[in-house]
């Protein structure tokens, strides 16, 4: 399996060259996206088979690449296999979607060479078994996605997004580099096998965890390191956005899990508390941003931040239980987190693909200029509805199951010895509920404004249905969402080997059969997606029958209720902004200092009234802008160092040397 993965990665790299060198763009599309879909599907199938077979770890494969005394190690265990499955499942379907979508690409030569390289790099991150190959693959992933973000580089906003992304990616990799440096210990053993055997002091291990959280968290989009994500994810072509949001954030989660659960040794309780707190803040802030956003793709990117926060809450809780010595309880939040990662990769890819279809059909991503697309793009509207249900956490779809499991694990958790945790765990649970409720509101708003009502612009009125290929790939995503929601037990069976490897426990009784999911032993809470689905279908049919049998008798035709305001203008409909206004006033004034100003002309004036809304992101305000100002200030002042006399240069060196020697002397005392 490891060798197969490396072969597939090599094939994808070759496809990258093919994409660059193929003479005709049409042929290049088919070769690159078709080849990527085949490679990804093959890998997903292999990973699925390996996980069904128990997910035993493969032996370490050593390649004579990289630094001579480190070499490149590759190994797949249950955790990597699960993420390989997640990655390639989404990648295969997204590549299929791209077969249709790529035909409308403005500049295919700036996407085709990098797309397969990006897939290969993500696969290699998952297979790496030493810090060196991990970081090299990680950087390849960052750089390839950066190039993809720059695909439409003529827009200034995209260039800005790419710049912010590059800076954050470099910063994150640096943090990961230091984390691995600490984990490697004084002996400098950079293989993962060596890191597992090192015993670090609590302080060093804690520092490594914080650095890993910064490094992987900045890629995953944890607050306050999320600022690049809503800029960069929407800037890329839609199929790449789907991969960045749906899959790359999961690769980052994989990195975090690998370091925190596997490499860092026995956990301390505050690691979990930290991850949980960051996750809770991320979940709520992410979805609040999404609720106020007008651009479809940016909205989806903010929703990704929320889901990453949810996953982080689950991982933090699992870590807390493991550190407190009740490892049996750790399995449930861990499985819930990984299951949510899988679910999110499915429905977020689906929604980004749908957003790409809408953006292509209408030429705009601004929800205030859309509307009524359910009549013009009925198939896209249907699959997008499935995606919105799933992401809003409605049964019988998959988003409900993982969030339900997460809440089960929070609210059935045993009491913990640390007083701080007694506070944090319930608060994180409440934040989770709040985020789930706001997500429902957010996606009601998205779907209602984009697909329902009447078109708000001529572009939306002139839209037409998209390609069959795109529809079918999105339908496949929707079907997977339904399968994972209706039959969650088999899907969770794929995660159990990873849970056993990472937290040392699985669900009690394997989750009790394939039909019912009973996550907590000895408690009556259980869920069956299939039964809920059948019940919903049954009730729905019954209600439909009743309405049709009884309702048509009193049928009468009349003008619809117009609130006493008989205007037919589409602008009198609910807008995205007006729908979000109540929640914006409740939460936004605190979180984003949202301020509304109404500029009302005096009676007799002919100018129009104006309404302006101002928001600011606390992450920019309190973290990034001060950092940027400090860097500029320091650069201006340090510049003077370049224009000194030789003697002053030497004096600086002398003073530095003496200071260091004094420090050594003081330490040696």
């Amino acid at each position, binding site marked *: 399996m490891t060798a197969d993965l490396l072969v597939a990665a090599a094939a994808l790299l070759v496809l990258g060259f093919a994409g660059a060198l193929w003479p005709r763009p049409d042929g290049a599309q088919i070769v690159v996206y078709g080849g990527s879909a085949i490679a990804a599907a093959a890998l997903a199938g292999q990973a699925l088979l390996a996980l069904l077979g128990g997910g035993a770890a493969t032996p370490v494969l050593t390649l004579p690449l990289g630094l001579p005394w480190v070499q490149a190690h590759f190994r797949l265990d249950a955790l990597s296999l699960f993420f390989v499955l997640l990655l390639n499942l989404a990648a295969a379907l997204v590549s299929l979607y791209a077969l249709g979508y790529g035909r409308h690409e403005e500049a295919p030569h700036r996407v085709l060479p990098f797309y397969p390289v990006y897939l290969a790099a993500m696969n290699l991150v998952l297979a790496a078994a030493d810090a060196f190959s991990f970081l090299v693959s990680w950087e390849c992933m960052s750089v390839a996605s950066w190039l993809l973000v720059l695909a439409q580089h003529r827009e200034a906003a995209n260039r800005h997004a790419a710049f912010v992304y590059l800076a954050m990616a470099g910063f994150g990799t640096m943090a990961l580099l230091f984390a691995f440096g600490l984990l490697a210990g004084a002996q400098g053993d950079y293989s993962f096998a060596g890191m597992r055997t090192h015993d670090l002091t609590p302080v060093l291990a804690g520092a490594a965890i914080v650095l890993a959280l910064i490094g992987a968290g900045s890629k995953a989009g944890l607050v306050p390191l999320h600022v690049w994500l809503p800029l960069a994810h929407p800037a890329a072509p839609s199929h790449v956005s789907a991969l960045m949001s749906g899959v790359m954030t999961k690769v980052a989660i994989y990195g975090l899990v690998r370091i925190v659960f596997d490499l860092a040794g026995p956990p301390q309780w505050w690691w979990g508390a930290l991850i949980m707190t960051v996750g809770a803040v991320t979940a709520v802030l992410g979805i609040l941003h999404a609720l106020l956003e007008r651009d479809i793709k940016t909205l989806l990117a903010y929703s990704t931040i929320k889901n990453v926060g949810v996953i982080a809450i689950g991982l933090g809780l699992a870590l807390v239980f493991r550190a407190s010595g009740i490892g049996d309880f750790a399995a449930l939040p861990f499985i819930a987190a990984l299951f949510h990662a899988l679910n999110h990769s499915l429905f977020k890819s689906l929604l980004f693909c749908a957003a790409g279809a809408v953006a292509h059909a209408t030429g705009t991503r601004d929800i205030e200029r859309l509307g009524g697309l359910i009549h013009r793009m009925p198939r896209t509207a249907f699959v997008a509805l499935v995606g919105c249900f799933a992401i809003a956490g409605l049964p019988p779809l998959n988003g409900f199951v993982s969030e339900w499991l997460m809440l089960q694990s929070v609210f059935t958790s045993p009491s913990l010895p640390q007083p701080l945790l007694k506070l944090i765990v319930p608060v994180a649970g409440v934040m989770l509920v709040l985020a789930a409720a706001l997500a429902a509101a957010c996606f009601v708003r998205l779907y209602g404004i984009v697909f329902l009502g009447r078109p708000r612009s001529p572009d939306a009125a002139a839209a037409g249905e998209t390609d069959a290929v795109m529809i079918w790939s999105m339908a496949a995503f929707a079907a997977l969402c339904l399968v994972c929601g209706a039959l969650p037990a088999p899907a969770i069976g794929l995660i159990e080997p990873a849970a056993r490897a990472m937290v040392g426990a699985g669900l009690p009784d394997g989750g009790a059969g394939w039909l019912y999911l009973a996550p907590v032993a000895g408690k009556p809470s259980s869920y069956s997606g299939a039964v809920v689905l059948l019940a919903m279908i049954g009730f729905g049919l019954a209600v439909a029958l009743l309405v049709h049998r009884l309702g048509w008798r009193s049928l009468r035709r009349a003008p619809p209720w117009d609130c006493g305001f008989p205007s037919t203008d589409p602008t009198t409909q609910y807008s995205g902004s007006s729908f979000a206004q109540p929640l914006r006033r409740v939460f936004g004034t605190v979180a984003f200092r949202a301020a509304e100003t109404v500029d009302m002309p005096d009676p007799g004036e002919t100018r129009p009234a104006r309404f302006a809304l101002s928001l600011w992101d606390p992450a920019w305000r309190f973290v990034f802008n001060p950092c940027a100002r400090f860097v500029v200030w320091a650069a201006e002042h340090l510049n003077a160092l370049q224009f000194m006399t*030789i003697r002053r240069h*030497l004096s600086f060196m002398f003073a530095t040397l003496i200071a260091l020697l004094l420090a050594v002397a003081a330490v040696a005392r």
Partner: protein
Amino acid sequence: MSASLLNQIEYSASHLFAALVLLGSFALIYQRRMVGMFNAFAFQATALAAAAAWEAYVQAAPHLYVTAGLTFVLKAVVIPLALRRIVRKLDIHRSIEVVIGIGPTMLAGIALVVLATLLVLPVMPGVAAIAREELALALAVLLIGLLIMITRRNATSLVIGFMSMENGLILGVVGVAGMPLVVEVSIALAVLVAFIIFGLFLIRIRERFDSLDAHYLESFRGERR
């Protein structure tokens, strides 16, 4: 003669030679005239050659004789003579401009010796005493060489300070048993190369600006103050 007495003599003699090298450093500090500086440097190099030769005898390491010879020939004879010739030929100003007065510089030098001793003695408790003390003295010589480089304005003093630093380096190297010859030859060559480069610089400065003030090196590098 008993073995302990022999050890004591070995120890004292190598200590003596190392201390003479350090003395040479202080002699470099208080020179106000160029020629005096060359003489002091020649004295330091001679002491270093003697130290290396004594180490060669004590450690029974004949390759150290080569080091001693190289040091003596190059640093005690050839380089001072060459510098003296340059100064005479180019008719360079013979006095040395100091940035910090000689008294404070001497005090700073003493402080550096204290620092080096404090630093080396506790850091390496397991190593033989003879190597430790020599290393402390060598570090002091090295630091004082750097001090000379930053407290003198003339380019020639820069060269001398630089080579004095090299002397400290070699003093440290010969004190450690088992250092291969290759390193010493390369160090000696590096010093020679540095000498050639600096000499070239001096000549070119002389040609262009008719002065040996290192201040002109800056405008030569195209930098502004």
